[in-house]
């Protein structure tokens, strides 16, 4: 698959957005989670067979700059709407993982007409005292890796290449990534989307790894209650990084739902 890296300048250079683009078909914007994205992962490649996939790096990640100009979630939402404009997208399907899922919800609530269908993959944005999301700022790389995958994952059960890459994803050089996540998710990731979610018009699928030990699957029900008409799917034998662990099953769910 031919993949391009677009560098887009926004607001007179306050932001440089690094966006991966590949494939053809209806537009799909994939928003990565707190630990970022390594690059054009295999699941993006498979989605690109049916969609034109745009996978931007959130400001503060990789070559995307301007984090210091984003004070809160509203700033982050407006930034993404401007990015869609800059990419020439009147609308797109949204697929968002964790932090990216939270951003997708706010985009869909703020500008309902800009979103086709939406898949939220273990999104952040709500809080339960009895089921806290993992403290990603306090966990060191080794501890974080422990909670990112399904229980007892084995080379046979998961994408070997992805499993091997996880420590690399979490190298100390990449603290910059979690720096950005800390700005929007710390100390409690509830930043008010529950007051805004009623505006969402996009048909929504909430997809969660049954064995997600980073963001407990119990939140799937809470998001489903907030987003009218949404559906929930729990993926067996999958943890928080379900798209890396089970790329076939993951892309199956996503593409079937987006095609309606």
């Amino acid at each position, binding site marked *: 698959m031919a993949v391009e890296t677009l560098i887009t300048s926004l607001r007179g250079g306050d932001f440089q957005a690094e966006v991966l683009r590949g494939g053809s078909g209806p537009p799909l914007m994939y928003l990565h989670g707190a630990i970022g994205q390594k690059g054009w992962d295999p699941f993006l490649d498979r989605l690109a067979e049916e969609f034109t996939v745009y996978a931007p790096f959130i400001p503060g990640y990789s070559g995307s700059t301007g984090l210091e100009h984003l004070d809160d979630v509203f700033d982050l939402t407006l930034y993404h709407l401007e990015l869609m404009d800059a990419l020439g997208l009147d609308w797109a399907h949204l697929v968002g993982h964790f932090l990216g899922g939270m951003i997708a919800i706010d985009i869909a609530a703020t500008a309902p007409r800009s979103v086709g269908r939406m898949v939220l993959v273990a999104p952040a944005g709500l809080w339960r005292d009895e089921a806290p999301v993992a403290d990603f*700022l306090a966990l060191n790389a080794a501890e974080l890796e422990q909670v990112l995958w399904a229980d007892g994952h084995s080379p046979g059960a998961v994408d070997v290449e992805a499993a091997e890459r996880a420590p690399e994803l979490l190298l100390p050089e990449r603290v*910059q990534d979690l720096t950005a996540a800390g700005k929007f998710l710390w100390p409690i990731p509830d930043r008010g989307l529950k007051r805004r979610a009623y505006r969402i018009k996009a048909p929504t699928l909430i997809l969660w790894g049954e064995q997600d030990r980073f963001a407990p699957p119990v939140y799937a029900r809470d998001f489903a209650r907030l987003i009218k008409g949404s559906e929930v799917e729990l993926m067996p034998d999958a943890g928080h990084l379900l798209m890396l662990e089970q790329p076939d099953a993951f892309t199956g769910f996503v593409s079937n739902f987006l095609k309606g």
Partner: protein
Amino acid sequence: MKLCFFHLMPYQHLPQDFEKQYHSVWVDPPNSLFDPEKGHLLYNDFLDEMEFAEEMGFDGLCVNEHHNNAYGLMPSPNLMASAMIRRTSKAAIIVLGNSLALYNPPVRVAEEFAMLDVLSGGRFIAGFPLGTSQDTIFGYGQVPVTLREKYYEAHDLVIKAWTEREPFSFNGKYTQLRYVNIWPRPYQQPHPPIWVPGSGSLETWDWTIDHDYVYCYLSYSGYKVGKTVLDGFWEEMERREKPFNPYHAGFLQLVVVSETDAQVEEYKDSIEYFFKKGLHVPSGFGNPPGYRSQRSIQSGVSAQIVDARRDQLTNATWEDYIKAGNVIAGGPETVREELAHAIRELRVGNLMLLLQFGDMPKHLALKNTELFAREVMPYVRDIWSEYETRWWPKKLMEPEKVL
């Protein structure tokens, strides 16, 4: 030299196997481990120890702020400073300090510090730390990447609140106030001396030098590791062509003195309690992403500190901590020599002495304080006598005015 007595006010009754059974001494140790009746006795013993230090001739009494912490029981050091002010008259009262970004609005710090300065009749020294990640990020839920900016803004507001004589408004990013107008205002003019505790971040050096404040390195790593941080500070001073003055910097050192070298074994348990239980903190709480800038991480100063701390937590014994310089220990002769050596190596004029630590019982804490005052203090007192400090309450520098 300015020789200051520093107290952390540690909880002294952690279970024997604390470091094996519990995740951390800081941030998440359950407060079911805190016995309020024992706490009552501890607070009062600790205040006795501080008052005794003044009697013994220490120049200043230092307290600091920690949250969710079993080795430092002072979420509000200001309360302890207030209690000490009423029972002392000669020593500087040094709060090291209030983590400015944690106060909403930060004028609270301007007000409380002004109260302490007025109550003490101008014996007060104000400490403005950024604050450790354990206290600020994990204890008080601050966002790592914006903490420093919030701290700088709070500082500017406090200074303005101290120095403006008319009400003013403040339109900051983190604090907005229509009327800033503190009552009381500080006793010292334009405001109390300011000391900045830091942990080797390059930004803190820059900022402290820009504002001509005292840079304090408060670590438990001892002077051998501390030297890497203070050397960095002095090099930065030199690079910026600032004249050297040892009083521009401060350092905290653990010291125990006995009648003879052999007798220091009496402090064995206190030393091991302090390092094994008191510093039982997992690495993840020490350096959350965004707390230190990339620039400071790359400088490697903080990495060395983290490494030093990790080493402390392995299977070291009390004698290893002494060998490593974490604790300066011995009979008077040994301590005099090693401490004088440390002071000259570090080039510091403000020394903060941690003479009570860990579960050291009161009688040993008093003995250590007295032996230090009688047997060590006179021998290091005149180091740097050719320099003058600009960072000390003026009232305490004019002997005739001292009560």
